[in-house]
Every structure is written in structure tokens, then in C-alpha cells.
């Protein structure tokens, strides 16, 4: 069972990891402990691997800092589900192999328990079963490879290029 961590709309990368806590300024080993350090200090301390982030629209707006999604990956966030993602965050998370689903689950309560089957996109929570819209095939391929670097090393090209 995973726990749902509910966030609002327009969560920005300065909230996910403030610039002052960048690996450049601190240390890479500590990075996961800085996730939401000011916006939601209990997050990094108490979340469990596989927990789900459920947020409002435009998740991850702001800076291009990849250490924001990296901190979430290192903590073991199971997936991020939001109606929409900011572009650079979407790319960075995809590149790191973090599953993102574009769906509005903001009716689910903070702290609720849930399960997510990443392969089918089926979420169950409190007796409710929701099927998340499947990502494009090439996006799934990148996740399955474990991110863009392993994808590139296996395929020798970028996604979308295969058929060209």
C-alpha cells in the first residue's frame, strides 16, 4: 500500500528543492533529505518508497534543475499524478525514469492509501478504481529502459527517431 501526498497547483522547483540546497551548494548525498524541505518538511522524513504524489495542474514549473526530480527519484516516489506538468520537469522526470501520469486525482485525500499498477495505470483507493490515461508508447519505452541514458545506450538513438 502506498500513501498519497497531496499537493496543490503550480508546485514549482523552488518548492521541490530550493536553489540554496542544490548539490552545487550542499552535497549530493544529502539531496533526498532536501525534498520539499520548506514547503512540506515532513515529506522527506516520513514518506515511504512507492508513495504517490498527487497534485494540481502545472506540477514542476520554474527552473530546469534536474536535482528536483532526482531528489524525488532517490526517495523512491512511485509516481507523480497531476492534470499537467511543466515542460522541463516532465522531460527531466522522464529522462530519470520517474513515472508521470497526466490525470486529475485531486479529489483523493492527503494521507489516503492507494495502490498503483504502473503497467496498467490502475489506481485503487478507498474502494474506488481509476484507470489513468496511458502515456504515449515512446514515453513508456523510456521508463521501461530506466531513463533516457539507458534508452540511448540500448537503442543508439533518441525516442521518436526509430521510424525515421
Amino acid at each position: 500500500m502506498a500513501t498519497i501526498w497531496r499537493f496543490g497547483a503550480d508546485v514549482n522547483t523552488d518548492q521541490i528543492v530550493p536553489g540554496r540546497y542544490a548539490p552545487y551548494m550542499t552535497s549530493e548525498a544529502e539531496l533526498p533529505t532536501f525534498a520539499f524541505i520548506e514547503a512540506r518538511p515532513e515529506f522527506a522524513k516520513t514518506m515511504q518508497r512507492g508513495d504517490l504524489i498527487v497534485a494540481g495542474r502545472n506540477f514542476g514549473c520554474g527552473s530546469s534543475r534536474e536535482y528536483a526530480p532526482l531528489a524525488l527519484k532517490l526517495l523512491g516516489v512511485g509516481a507523480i499524478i497531476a492534470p499537467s506538468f511543466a515542460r522541463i520537469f516532465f522531460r527531466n522526470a522522464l529522462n530519470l525514469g520517474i513515472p508521470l501520469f497526466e490525470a486529475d486525482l485531486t479529489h483523493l485525500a492527503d494521507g489516503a492509501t492507494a495502490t498503483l499498477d504502473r503497467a496498467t495505470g490502475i489506481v485503487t483507493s478507498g474502494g474506488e478504481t481509476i484507470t489513468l490515461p496511458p502515456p504515449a508508447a515512446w514515453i513508456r519505452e523510456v521508463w521501461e529502459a530506466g531513463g533516457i541514458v539507458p534508452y540511448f545506450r540500448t537503442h543508439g538513438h533518441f525516442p521518436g527517431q526509430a521510424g525515421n
Partner: protein
Amino acid sequence: MAQTLAEQILSHAAGYSVQAEDVITASVDLVMAHDSISPSIIKVLREELQAPRVWDPERVALVVDHVAPASSIQTAEAQARLRRFAREEGIGHLFDVGRGISHQVLIEERLARPGMLIVGSDSHSTAYGAVGAFGTGMGTTDIALALATGQTWLRVPETVRIRATGRLQPGVGAKDLGLYVARMLRADGATYRSVEWHGVDFLSIGDRMTLATLSIEVGGKAGLIPPTGPAAADLDVPNWLRVEEGAHYEQTLDVDLALLTPQIAMPSYVDNVADLADVGRVAVDVVYLGTCTNGRHEDMATAARILRGRRLAPGVRMLVVPASSQALELAIADGTLTTLLQAGATIGTPGCGACIGRHMGVLAPGEVCLFTGNRNFRGRMGSPESQIYLGSPAVAAATAVTGYITDPRELEAVDEAEALFA
């Protein structure tokens, strides 16, 4: 078929005609990386990708701007590593401490040119749209891959067109237009889209950079200003790059510039924008003039015009951090700097300064800052208990004089009244 500027540039970069929604692999013309992210880029390049060399050292620009000069042993060491990397790779375009903010420097050095596809390790890489280049920000892994291969993958964006008509009133500037567009489109109004700014041919390249950098604040993948008008006259524009009749715009926002008044983004979202007139009396502790959005010579000169013969309000600090050494030189040459110093301002090393709250003017809990930058997120410039309001350089200067957020036109009215009685 008629294409948007984004489609034209990405067609060129892909080597075939592309249109919105295509997922393409494109050749990049220039890759920019700055000090803040370079340690992780070098690591991914060397360790994960095991790339022995960058694909083309001529088409790489490295800039030390985010913590310049270094604030700690750790940042100093990372910068030393970046210099070593530049030497190992034979990268000549290394712009070290004090040269300025990456985006400003690449445009001054004419490394960013019309029609190019430029990827940068910084979300405000949309800045290159000021000269008609498709500039876009990416993270560590994407930049490392671009350095290794000279290529990147992209989804060709749809375009949102801003169609401006009329002329700006005195005291109102490009920043007010940018903030007004954020107010109308909201922070995600152009997510995955290119923002094309029409009707701004009269603007300087610097003012165009203000609009191009603010394009990411509405989610834009790129922010393109057509490279036409007097300020673009000496740019080398490829003949295939021009606004085409019949290109498809997903959305058009019309703005009558003559009706625009000074705009303020209130804490803590860039799209939380109101007319300055409706903001009320907000006392400030700090006025910060700088960044890739508004730290150029013309921005300092605008502030100096208002500050000439005046002093900062008691208890107000004003930090001026020029966007580049060239901007600083110009400000010295024409007396702008002297005016700012005489008014009581403090000058920082050209670069990003306190824009991301790392050094050179970090805010204390409870402090309020009027900032000419582009983001007012909670904790961006220091304490999460500080508050950031975004405004234009003219508003910044007027605010520094009175100590509360002030419409520069009010001060000008005072000047005129004084002149009458002189």
C-alpha cells in the same frame, strides 16, 4: 504550408519540414551550460554516457554566473573543475566570473544568432528568442546528451501568438507587457508551446530579452520575437526565417500597449499580477535591480534617470547587479553608475547575484523585496518568510525613492510640479 517561427527553425534543425506535435530529433547549433549544473553534467557525460569528448567544442559555451565569484570551497572547487573541463575539451567559449549572466553574454558575443536551435542548462534559455533563435532550457541529462551527440529530441510546439498594437506610455516598459501577458495567460497558459511576440519591432534587443525570458513563466518552451525592426537591423537573419502569413497559431492574445500601466507580480507566483495602482501601499526593505530579465545597461539607465538628484528612502537597500561586464562598462561610461551610487545603491559583480537566493543579497525572514527579476516564488531569494514583488526597473527606482511600491509616473509628476515652481 505556412509555418510558425518555431516550426521553421525546428524544420531547419531536423533537416526536413516539421509541424506542431511531431516528435523529432534535431541538430543543435549551440549548447550552453553554467556553473550551477556543470558538475552534474560532467558526471553524466563522463560516467553514465562514457563520452570521451564533446561533439563540437566550438559550439559549446560555458558560463560561470550562478555563484560568481564562488561563495564557498565547494562552489570554488566545482568552478575549478569546469575550467579544467573547458581546457580538456578545448572549449574556447568559457565566460568566467564577472563576465555576466549566460543569456546576456551569449547574445552580446553574438554566439546566439537568428534561426539557431540553442539548448541551455537553464530554464531562461528562452532568452535567445530575443534575436530570433529557438532557445530552450533543459536539465542535466538532456544537456549531457546534447554535448555528447550534438542532437536532442523535441516535440515541435504549437504556438501562442501575442499580438501587440500601439505604443507604450512613458513610464511603462517591456516588463509590464511581460507581466501583463503572465496575468492573462497564467503560469501554465503556454505549457509545451512556443510564444511568438508580434508588434514589438520597436523594442531594443534588451527589451526583447525581457519578453523572451518571461516566456518560460507562462510555461513556454521558447519565446520568439521576429528578428525585424531597427534593433535587429545588424543581425544576420537567414532568408528562410520570417513571419509567414497563414501560419497556425493555437491562440492569439491581443494587447493594446497604449492602455498598459505598470504591472506588479505579487507574492509568490509570477502570474499573481495586478495593476500597480491596485496593489496598495507595500513598504519594502530591499530593491533589487538585476537578472537576465532586467539587469542591462538600459535598465540601470532607466533607474538612474529616476534616481538622479535623489536618495534612497531611509531604511531601504538597493542592490544593482549588472547583467554583464559590458552593461557595467556602459553604465560607467555614461555616468549611470555614479548616479546610482550617489543615490545610495550598492553594486554587485555581474552575474545572477541573489536571484536564486544563494549569495550577494539573500533576504531575511520578514523582508520585502521589489525585484526586477522573473520569479517571486516563496523562498526564491532567501528566507521562505520573505516576500518578493516583481516589477520594472522604473518601478524599482521609484520604489527605492519612496520606500513603498510606487508608480514611476507619480514621481515624474512631482518633478514637473517642482519644475513649475523653480
